[in-house]
């Protein structure tokens, strides 16, 4: 049973960066970015190809983040320069990425067995499971720290304000377009990293692994948002921590469902219903209160 929790924890840590990325686009910028599905697989595809060419997992990490950043920049450019709705811009780039990912992978599935694994790159614990977990915590911890720092800098204040009141930031000398481009680049770099981490966790890269993944990130952020409102959190570091907690709770619920013997074919349907529930519950609560 503890194995079961640990697996959910490991997976939720791997998905943590993506949830942080969705937090940036959805909560900081107020932009619905669904490039996610594509940039997630992109990260895994770039990583698989480089690993096959005997790159070390540590060297692969920045490259797949860069690839994700480029995908995010594409969406941001389509959105800001061509004035196309952010949702549509994301769908266009995501769709295009499917072909690009297929070209990078060369086929629809690449197993990563017998290749070096990021989670074994260093040995801190004898127990392999704990060691993997520790490295995942380390990566996510460093990223959370960096994101927290970024959002507290002068540039970070401009980022948060641009999403909150673009009219104000324009009058305060902020180029909102540039801020959006940088923000989407960071968000999708984080998403691509998650794709890489999950491919490392599961031992293969699949062209379809990203389908619907944006819902997982969205669910995590929505859970985080409920927790934030409930505990009245304004501190940025704690907000990021809540996003990671949200990611964990989300994976726990999914793991539980599978453990109860729900047919895996229903998993996506169940995920969608679960997110619907998270969104609908607070509203239902309010309606009941009024009645």
């Amino acid at each position, binding site marked *: 049973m503890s194995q079961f929790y640990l697996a959910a924890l490991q997976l939720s840590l791997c998905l943590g960066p993506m949830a942080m990325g969705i937090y940036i686009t959805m909560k900081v910028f107020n932009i619905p970015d669904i490039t996610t599905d594509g940039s997630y697989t992109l990260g895994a595809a770039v990583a698989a190809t480089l690993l096959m060419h005997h790159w070390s997992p540590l060297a692969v990490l920045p490259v797949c983040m860069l690839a994700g950043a480029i995908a995010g920049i594409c969406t941001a450019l389509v959105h800001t320069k061509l004035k196309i709705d952010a949702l549509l811009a994301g769908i266009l780039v995501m769709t295009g990425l499917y072909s690009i990912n297929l070209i990078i992978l060369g086929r629809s599935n690449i197993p990563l067995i017998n290749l070096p694994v990021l989670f074994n790159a260093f040995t801190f614990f004898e127990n392999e499971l704990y060691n993997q977990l520790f490295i995942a915590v380390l990566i996510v911890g460093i990223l959370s720290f960096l994101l927290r*720092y*970024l959002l*507290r*800098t*002068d*540039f970070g*204040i*401009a980022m*948060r*304000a641009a999403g*909150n*009141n673009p*009219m*104000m*930031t*324009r*009058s*305060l*000398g*902020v*180029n*909102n377009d540039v801020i959006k481009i940088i923000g989407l680049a960071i968000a999708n770099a984080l998403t691509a990293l998650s794709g890489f981490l999950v491919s490392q966790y599961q031992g293969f890269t699949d062209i379809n692994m990203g389908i619907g993944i944006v819902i997982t990130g969205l669910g995590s952020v929505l859970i985080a948002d409920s927790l934030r409102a409930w505990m009245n959190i*304004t501190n940025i570091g704690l907000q990021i921590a809540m996003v990671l907690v949200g990611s964990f709770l989300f994976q726990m619920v999914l793991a539980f469902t599978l453990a109860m013997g729900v047919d895996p074919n229903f998993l996506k349907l169940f995920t969608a219903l679960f997110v619907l529930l998270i969104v609908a519950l607070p509203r239902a609560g309010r309606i009941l209160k009024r009645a």
Partner: protein
Amino acid sequence: MISLENISKIFHKGKENELSALKNISLKIDKGEFVTLVGANGSGKTTLLNIIGGAEKPSSGSVRINGEDITRIPEHKRSKWIARVFQNPNNGTAPDLTILDNFRLAALRTRRKSLKIGADKVFKREVISRIAGLGMGLENKINQSMGNLSGGQRQALTLLMSVMDNTDILLLDEPTAALDPKSARVVLNLADTFNKEMGITVILITHSLKDAQQYGGRLIQLQEGKIARDINTESKLQLSLADISEWFG
């Protein structure tokens, strides 16, 4: 300092609903002037301010600041000289950010927003002392979200924020329209102080004839996109409230 030459603004050009909001306006405003702009609804006051601030581009004509042609310079780059306060108190501040963060961003209006943490102890003290000067009791709330404050409090802070960085020109578009009389007084007195003590050029749009009579030196009336009256400071001192009311007959 500000010079507008033959400014026209046509909305929906060539369409059925074509509308000429400004018609060939030329206007020079000197450094340190406090200009009050009045006129009926739809006479083009906001459009004129938007063209100076850069939120709108003129259909024809040119805008100069200190002799430099800035007609094509985008709004976010004009913030080098210009600060704005909008009619809606919600427009000038970011509600989910703290008061301190709002002030930090305003303090960087003309500068780069870099990757360092600038809202440090020294900055905090500076903000607290400035806010205390308002006498609204907000100085111990700088870590609260801006969204928790009333419209009057937010507008007063917005105005204070506008001089956190070097400001040559302050554009105020009916800043007190949504405020209670007491906050309105605080805001207009503050603008007056900035003009007198810091030499900031102020352009104030107001619907209140009383405020128009009381605040500012030069008084300009717009009518259907044209300057109907342009009254200098000395002549304005002779004007009574009744005289100004008469213009709007």
